[in-house]
């Protein structure tokens, strides 16, 4: 790979990361509790969107049902805490494992389905899960329509910083932040190496990928599992933060919002998940403030405007601008993802159609 971009990129990257870390650490102490809680939700959605992006963005399998895995993760964590007395910090990995299992099983029938057919099958999952959660034989665990009310965990220690106390909301934010970092590093390591290349190869040309020796069924099922696990971890963190789960929290729109977040952030982009999460967290609130009569219409218009301005999502836009300003940008255009050393990259316009 080019030496110019390799020396330039880490410096740029490290500054960006350092800046992000400082912001993430200090910001919660500059705002009110409720804002901290919102930031926490942004992190939660970012993990969930990253999960979906692994499946849809990188592997090309469209899922309209990731809200179901989010729900399973949230309920998994809630039931473990509520019925089995598992401490809250142990629930995200367990919920992730549970969702991996469900995702892997869902991945099997998905092997026979591609494109729109898979989308419809996963849609069925999103429709079924909220109703199954009300099922009477599960009610003992799920609490039926009433859901489960959880206890918000207290911080293990307290101190004051910038005049603000380190309370339950700030503690949970940092807990989610730690999990988010772990999940993003995991995804980063997974996607930029052999596995990532295999996933993209399957997306772009399954027959060629099989000819190269990639075990297609195994990879696709595993991707489904891993993707579901990420989203499930997001769901578990969401349940802890909100301290309540009920079937009505996980209806079909959740799946669609995750998909919207992924596309807005940028397909096949790891940092894009954050922008997508910010979008699905804040834009409905903006729409609500603009109009009480038709918040959904305002939301729709904002979405259309955004997709017109940034057809490849926020990260697609960032890459384009980066490529324009950076001398020797031609190389970056060939390999537009910072940190990814993928030999064959589809151009960005093609990505948005997968």
């Amino acid at each position: 790979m080019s030496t110019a971009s390799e020396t330039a990129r880490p410096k740029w990257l490290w500054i960006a990361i350092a800046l992000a870390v400082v912001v993430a650490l200090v910001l919660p102490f500059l705002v009110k509790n409720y804002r901290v809680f919102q930031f926490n939700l942004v992190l939660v959605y970012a993990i969930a969107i990253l999960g979906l992006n692994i499946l849809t963005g990188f592997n090309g399998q469209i899922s309209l049902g990731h809200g179901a895995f989010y729900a399973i993760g949230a309920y998994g964590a809630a039931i473990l805490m509520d019925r089995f007395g598992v401490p809250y910090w142990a629930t995200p990995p367990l919920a992730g494992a549970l969702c991996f299992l469900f995702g892997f099983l869902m991945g099997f029938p998905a092997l026979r389905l591609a494109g729109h057919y898979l989308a419809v099958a996963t849609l069925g999952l999103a429709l079924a899960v909220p109703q199954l959660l009300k099922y009477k034989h599960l009610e003992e665990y799920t609490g039926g329509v009433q859901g489960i009310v959880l206890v918000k965990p207290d911080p293990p220690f307290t101190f004051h910083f910038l005049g603000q106390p380190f309370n339950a909301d700030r503690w949970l934010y940092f807990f989610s932040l730690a999990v988010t970092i772990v999940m993003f590093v995991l995804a980063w390591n997974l996607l930029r190496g052999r596995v990532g290349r295999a996933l993209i190869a399957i997306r772009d040309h399954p027959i060629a990928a099989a000819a190269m020796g990639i075990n297609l069924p195994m990879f696709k099922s595993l991707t489904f599992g891993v993707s579901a696990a990420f989203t499930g971890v997001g769901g578990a963190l969401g349940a802890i933060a909100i301290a309540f789960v009920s079937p009505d929290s996980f209806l079909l729109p959740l799946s669609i919002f995750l998909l919207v977040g992924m596309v807005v952030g940028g397909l096949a982009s790891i940092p894009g998940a954050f922008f997508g999460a910010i979008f699905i967290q804040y834009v409905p609130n903006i729409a609500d403030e603009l109009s009480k009569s038709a918040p959904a219409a305002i939301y729709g218009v904002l979405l259309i405007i955004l997709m017109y301005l940034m057809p490849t999502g926020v990260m697609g836009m960032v890459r384009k601008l980066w490529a324009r300003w950076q001398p020797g940008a031609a190389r970056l255009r060939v390999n537009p993802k910072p940190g990814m050393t993928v030999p064959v990259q589809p151009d960005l316009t093609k990505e948005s159609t997968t």
Partner: protein
Amino acid sequence: MRHKQFGLAIAGLAAAAISLSALAQKKYDPGASDTEIKIGDTKPYSGPASAYGTIGKAIAAYFDKVNAEGGINGRKIKFISLDDGYNPAKTVEQVRKLVEEDEVLFVFNPLGTPSNTAIHKYMNQKKVPQLFVATGATKWGDPKNFPWTMGWQPNYQGEGRIYAQHILETKPNAKIGVLYQNDDYGKDYLKGLEDGLGDKAKTMIVSKVTYEVTDPNVDSQMVTLKGSGADTFFNITTPKFAAQAIKKAAEIGWKPTHYLNNVSASVGSVLTPAGLENSVGIITTQYGKDPTDPQWANDKGMLDWKAWMAKYYPSGDLKDASNVYGYGVAMTVVQVLKQCGDNLTRENVMKQAANLDMTLPTALPGINVKTSPDDFYPIQREQLARFDGKTWVLFGKVYDPGGN
């Protein structure tokens, strides 16, 4: 020097005394001031239950009227109503915004049983009133465990007890068959019926059959109920299933005395699809005046309501009972604030809300809004109504199911 100091001290004491007496007169918690009272609310303006969003708009329109007429004790109401899309997770977020950022005095009429369940604990921990919630579940009237939460409309158990009373009065040897939705809503109603029947519940209820919201229909349940030999039917179902049950009963030739829960008492969305001729004789309860009912065409309360709609909420639907609901519940909270006077603390808001005795011009005659420190159920009285093939006809006395 001495004199000067002495004078200062006197002045200081006097100032302190004045400010103390001022404090004694006026007391404020966050959200209240000399000029303003901030009230928060969540409603589903988007999403699956957005039809209920009109309640929020009606409430806002009523507060516009109050403000236009000078406010409450000189204070204007600032009503902040946020969209939660009927998603409990979003309700938590929006209510936290209202309490922690907008710093409202209290949260008023948040809508939906799951949404209110999600914030129930939070509101009581924060000691911010969760006042007159828009759901009929019985659990909102529990002042011992949740002193900061109060319902408004008649609760399901109370309604169940009214049917029980009527059955005991008119048909003490009835054999009752019950169809109910297998969730908290269905069980709430059933408990009311059983409590109302008392010791006789075991012998009188000959069959209890459930259905799931996921079931395609309730046909087999209806056949089972008919087979049980029941001559009285308590129909605890949501609109779609209510229509199916009425239709199926007619198809299989089962003609019990039919009690239908108020949840599904809509002529347009339940009785019409079930067949109006199949619905004749069905009994339900009512507490508010129906805006489409011709008998209230010249009623003062409803004429005032219509005039208010025309002036403050002209885009609202005059046929939608939700707009009557919003008007009535807003009127109730205004009464609470009037009673609070200059003591606008959260504690006093709850105290005054638990000390109501008023009538609403949009409620049926004889139905009042009454609370006490032990009674957190503002509206409990209801009257029975029978369907005559066209409309609900009120009959009999006003029932008071009493405390829970």
